[in-house]
């Protein structure tokens, strides 16, 4: 299993990445692929204050997306104050000394732009997308709120209510996401991935302005952030402007590292959630390594074999052939700073049971271990990944997001290793990773049991 010392494994992976880069170069030349590797066109700079800047010109449409991502998320939170990163994300729109509360988005919109933000276990990201003749405004706005937030107490109290409403919508009144939440809280016992990004309701109630101030001062620093601009602009002209706008923001102390490590799991964990619902639902999760581990490529291919499209095994078997599930699939949480889960889900059809669904899912997993994947099926999964890689580049926002996620997890250049790594996967690798990670002792099974409605 995977919960080793991070620093150690990082170095190991760095070597691997360099080796993989050579393989990649060879493959590109050998196969004559048209410039599939976006990364060769990325320009990286690091300002004196530590802000990492990634610029990628894409001139196919007259738009530019500006992203600022901070290396902070639910992963950096403590029990009792969960939800802090996400709360801060909301507060980033509630006023600095220069831009009044609620003005940020209004300024963006009245310039024809769109903005939003998101928080995950690993990061907090902000973006603005504009027509290319006016995007530089976003630089000023983002630079201002790296250190300029007011965190007005009145705004804090008002926004706390909004976030509690968000939690009600997303989790309290949605049985499937409520199940997902408790499943993660059981699959992880030590690592903060057990905590929901939005925070536990009781924690939200208790969050105070001081908590936000501390979190902001600890993590919202140029040396803990990155700026990514993708789209229709000229890097040579933009970089000096970025230096001018962001350069004066002082560097801060390095934020504390997350030291928690999830220990190896020895034995199945199982839980039920009883909630008013119509149909049972099943989650199954397995601890697996993240993309810094060499097995990540085989696991990624495995995810496509199981869940890439309607011909994939889980859909074909559980949904189409057996009609046990209304929908079903799986996914590999690969782009994750610390090792995360390979998980399966299925919504149980009326008249069928969670046990039947779980048995069918387990049968698919066992088949991976007993029979080698046929060549055509392996080739299909690889084709899907290659096509997805190109199709995903259609959107500048998606390109920025990919770069940012890789940068957060293992450095953006790691992206270069992706296709070569996928191409090198053999059927035997798939069998091996299935046997290594998709084991009963490493699994957490969560079942939603619909309770009778008291009301109608």
């Amino acid at each position, binding site marked *: 299993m995977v919960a080793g010392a991070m620093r150690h494994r990082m170095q190991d992976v760095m070597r691997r990445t360099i080796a993989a880069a050579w393989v990649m170069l060879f493959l590109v030349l050998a196969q004559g692929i048209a410039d599939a590797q976006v990364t060769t066109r990325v320009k990286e700079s690091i300002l004196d204050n530590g802000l990492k800047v990634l610029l990628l010109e894409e001139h196919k449409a007259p738009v530019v997306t500006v992203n600022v991502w901070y290396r902070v998320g639910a992963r950096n939170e403590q029990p009792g104050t969960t939800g802090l990163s996400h709360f801060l994300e909301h507060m980033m729109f509630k006023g600095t000394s220069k831009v009044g509360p609620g003005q940020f988005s209004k300024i963006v919109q009245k310039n024809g732009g769109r903005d939003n933000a998101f928080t995950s276990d690993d990061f907090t990201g902000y973006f603005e997308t504009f027509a290319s003749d006016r995007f530089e405004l976003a630089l000023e706005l983002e630079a201002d709120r790296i250190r300029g937030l007011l965190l007005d107490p009145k705004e804090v109290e008002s926004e706390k209510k*909004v976030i509690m*409403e968000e939690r009600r919508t997303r989790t309290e009144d949605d049985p499937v996401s409520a199940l997902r939440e408790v499943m993660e809280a059981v699959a992880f016992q030590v690592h903060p991935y057990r905590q929901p990004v939005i925070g536990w309701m009781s924690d939200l109630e208790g969050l105070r302005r001081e908590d936000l101030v501390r979190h902001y001062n600890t993590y919202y620093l140029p040396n803990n952030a990155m700026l990514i601009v993708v789209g229709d602009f000229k890097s040579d002209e933009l970089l000096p402007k970025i230096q001018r706008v962001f350069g004066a923001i002082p560097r801060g102390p390095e934020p504390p590292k997350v030291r928690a490590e999830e220990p190896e799991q020895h034995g199945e964990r199982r839980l039920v959630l009883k909630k008013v619902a119509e149909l049972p639902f099943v989650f199954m999760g397995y601890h697996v390594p993240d993309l810094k581990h060499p097995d990540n490529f085989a696991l990624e291919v495995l995810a496509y074999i199981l869940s890439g499209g*309607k011909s994939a095994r889980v859909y074909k078997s559980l949904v189409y052939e057996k009609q046990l599930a209304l929908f079903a699939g799986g996914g590999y949480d690969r782009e994750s700073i610390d090792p995360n889960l390979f998980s399966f889900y299925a919504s149980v059809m009326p008249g069928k049971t969670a046990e039947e669904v779980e048995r069918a899912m387990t049968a698919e997993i066992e088949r991976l271990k007993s029979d080698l994947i046929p060549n055509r099926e392996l*080739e299909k999964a690889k084709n899907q990944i290659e096509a997805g890689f190109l199709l995903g580049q259609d959107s500048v926002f998606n390109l920025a997001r990919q770069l940012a996620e890789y940068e957060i997890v293992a450095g953006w250049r790691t992206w270069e290793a992706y296709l070569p790594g996928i191409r090198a996967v053999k059927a035997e690798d798939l069998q091996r990773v299935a046997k290594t990670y998709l084991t009963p002792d490493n699994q957490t099974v969560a079942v939603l049991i619909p309770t009778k409605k008291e009301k109608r």
Partner: protein
Amino acid sequence: MSVNDGQMIASRAARRMRWVGGWLLVLLLLPPLAAAAPLAERQVLENGLTLLVASRRALPIVTINVTVQAGSLWEPEGQAGLANLAALLLTRGTMTRTAAQIDEEVDFIGASLSSSAGRDSSEVDLTLLKKDLPKGLELLADVLLHPAFDEAEIGRKVREIRAALRKRQEDPGEVASEAFNELVFGSHPYGRPLEGTDASLSAITRDAIMRFYRDHYTPERSIITVVGDVEPKEIAQQLRALLKSWPKGKSTGERAGDPKPMQEKPVVKKIDRSVTQANIFLGHQGIRRDNPDFYAVTVMNYILGGGGFSSRLVERIREEKGWAYDIHSYFYPGLERGAFQVGLQTKNETAGAAVGEVLRELRQIRDQGVTDQELADAKAYLTGSFPLRLDTNRKLAGLISTVEYYKIGLDYADRYPKLIEAVTKEEVLRVARAYLWPDRYVLVVVADQAKVALPE
């Protein structure tokens, strides 16, 4: 085709409106010295099929959208769910391929092929790599021209739809939305679930599906839009070769017309559920896409509740009160008068007060209109963000199909900013009075009713 893009539509009627606008506007109609290119190259094949092509050669990928006059508006009486079934079954087997074979062939080239029905139209979408175009086009033509409508596949799909209808009862937002549409539109296709009901599904036979397909999936009722790395002449030849055997239809194409006018008084429906949040919809019938007031309505609704953080509803309900995470207002202009609706979620206890505020805002904008600043900001967003609506192949294909389907004109990108700029404060006030009805609305509240106190 999305009916909910509240910014999208011009129309013949809108053109007429400009003619009466006097010389200045007439001058605007003259071709500018450097006329911007139309959104796509258009041609009509011998069998009546409309083909639109936009070359975008930056990436070796292609997106194809087929839009057909085969939405639920064309369903015969008592056959709710027929259009949806017919659309979904297109990819579930042809004369020469089983459903599983189609799935496998699509996945093998890493493509996506899907079909779906809407109220106004049905669609088939294909996204793939350029190198796989021959294979992709062959599959697309096969599902369009030779669907098998196999009994076993029909049974499978009907069971899935029934299960999905049941699962939807878990989502209080869906429950509210369904009740709202029914009260606003009655038995009109806009008023019933696209998927039909348990009863109507039982009444649909294979013959009915075949007949619906034969009558509506015909070349002269279809538009094919191709965006991506293609040469217009070449792709036209390929499509002509594949689709020339598609015979013209003989059906009259009769469909549902205007929904019946609504009642004169407010109608309130309370649905009791054990949820932490009230899901609220308030609204009534709105406008058709060819209503000449479309642009003024777009501007007005942006200010009211369509403009996110720039809108009055978000400002009042979320920013000031902290009562909701999500609140919005939409117009859904369609071939017929689609809905106007305000939607929000708030904890049971604040539901009544929130409804009161919504009504107050509707009355306010009807009484006093909007300010110069609001009008300027709305126009700046709507015109300035236009490039963001066509910055990916998929978005562009969607816009082109919509523009063609609703007969808006392929010079839309040129005309849209002018049409928005031409909207005056007086027009905004006039359309607020004409199309917002704070005294004859439908209000649906799905909530824990014991905790909800609605205003008188």
